């Protein structure tokens, strides 16, 4: 079974993942153009893209622990997941900028003055170099520094989780659960391998 999954994952061409991953964005905008997203399409698109971005970032953080804890080999998916996550963050940001806030002076003021936007922006800025260097050429070129650079993904995703918590009004459970999952996924990185093996694999 597991072997089967591993084999099928390896067989998926990357272009297919990118095309499939772009479908929700296109679908949201098509619905928006057709006025099929309710009274406030901008809000629906903005929030949906934010959630997709967060799901993809979390999915990307799951790949390595799964590889360590289970015989699943999903590493091939990590790059497309990460690049797609950045694409969603970018469209989330551009939707906010072009359709929501609109006014240039207000865009700058919002990024500086609204803490939850500032935090989201820092996350986006941290993700940018990772997206740009997610290709074989950069890995070869950067050598050992590539790994170091890509550790930025931890603060970036943590800040995305904080952004989600901060944008929620009142005391809400869902954003806190996302943040808890992110913190857990990041802290497992520092757990020695043997802890995993003992906890999950041997028994």
């Amino acid at each position, binding site marked *: 079974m597991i072997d089967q999954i591993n084999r099928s994952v390896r067989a998926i061409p990357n272009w297919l993942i990118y095309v499939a991953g772009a479908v929700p964005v296109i679908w949201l905008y098509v619905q*928006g*153009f057709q*006025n099929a997203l*309710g*009274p*406030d*399409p*901008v*809000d629906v*698109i903005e929030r949906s893209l934010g959630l997709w971005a967060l799901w993809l970032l979390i999915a990307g953080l799951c790949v390595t622990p799964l590889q360590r804890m289970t015989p699943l080999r999903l590493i091939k998916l990590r790059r497309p997941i990460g690049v797609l996550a950045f694409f969603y963050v970018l469209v989330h940001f551009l939707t906010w900028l072009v*359709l*929501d*806030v*609109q*006014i240039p002076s*207000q865009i700058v*003021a*919002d990024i500086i*003055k*609204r*803490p*939850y936007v500032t935090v989201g922006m820092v996350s986006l800025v941290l993700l940018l170099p990772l997206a740009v260097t997610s290709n074989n050429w950069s890995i070869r070129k950067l050598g050992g520094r590539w790994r170091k650079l890509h550790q930025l993904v931890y603060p970036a995703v943590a800040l995305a989780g904080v952004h989600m918590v901060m944008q*929620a*009004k*009142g*005391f*809400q*459970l869902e954003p806190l659960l996302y943040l808890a999952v992110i913190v857990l996924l990041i802290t497992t990185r520092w757990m020695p391998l043997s802890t995993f093996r003992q906890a999950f694999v041997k028994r």
Partner: protein
Amino acid sequence: MANRWRNTLTSDDVTPEAMFLNRRQMMAGAAALGLGLTASPLRAAGLEPNSYEDITSYNNYYEFGTGKDDPARYADQLTIDPWTIKIDGMVEKPGDYAISDLVPQMTIEERIYRFRCVEAWSMVVPWNGFELADLLDLVGVKSGAKYVAFETVLRPEEMPGTRFPVLNWPYREGLRLDEARHPLTLLATGIYGKPMPKQNGAPIRLVVPWKYGFKYAKSISRITLTDKEPPTSWNMANAREYGFYSNVNPEVAHPRWSQATERRIGGGLFAKREPTLMFNGYDEVASLYQGMDLRKNF
């Protein structure tokens, strides 16, 4: 009342005719047609009520969930008949008032008001309701009372959103007595001539058009006259972000949203932002706040 407020935002001619006729039938006999028919300068700028569909499908009513579509989805569970409002505190005639007895004693009017949410979006809503001042006169306000506190019904079994402490339930709001007595302030019982939909705060809710929407307590179960500023839910949740007054004010930015502009709901994907007006355009309330620093008393 000598200074009954005159509607300037009538737009019967832009409302679809079927809806208009329907509304007139519903309003017949309800002394509702004393509408000032002066053309509003704002109408030239395209001001017309949002559709019934917009108004009833895009709501903030956290007792039913934090999503804008949650109230429309879950509010049908709320039992609104029978409904009593407990009126207590510094009043001559405290008691439990059944709204089936109360509302027929009131003059129901149609008021087309701008509605401005603190989240920097806006609508235009044709409310049906009566002036809160008339109710206060009916129950008799004792001298010394300075504030009116409102409480939304709290029924966890009918209100799924209240099973988690998103806010400190029950939802509480308040007005200063002079704000409550202002002729613009309504207790609304309907929209578009139809009974108040549950997702909009049935059977009876507050409407204070120069304040942000969260001040408009919904599904009111208690009204209390007091001499102290009452605690209000959003202020208790985050005092830095939500003040007691919460007057619409484009010059006082909220920590989450610039309040200088707003997005009119219903304008589709490319709706342009519009400038927000001081007191949401209801300049007649300015005198209530003379001498107050509205930056401090936000």
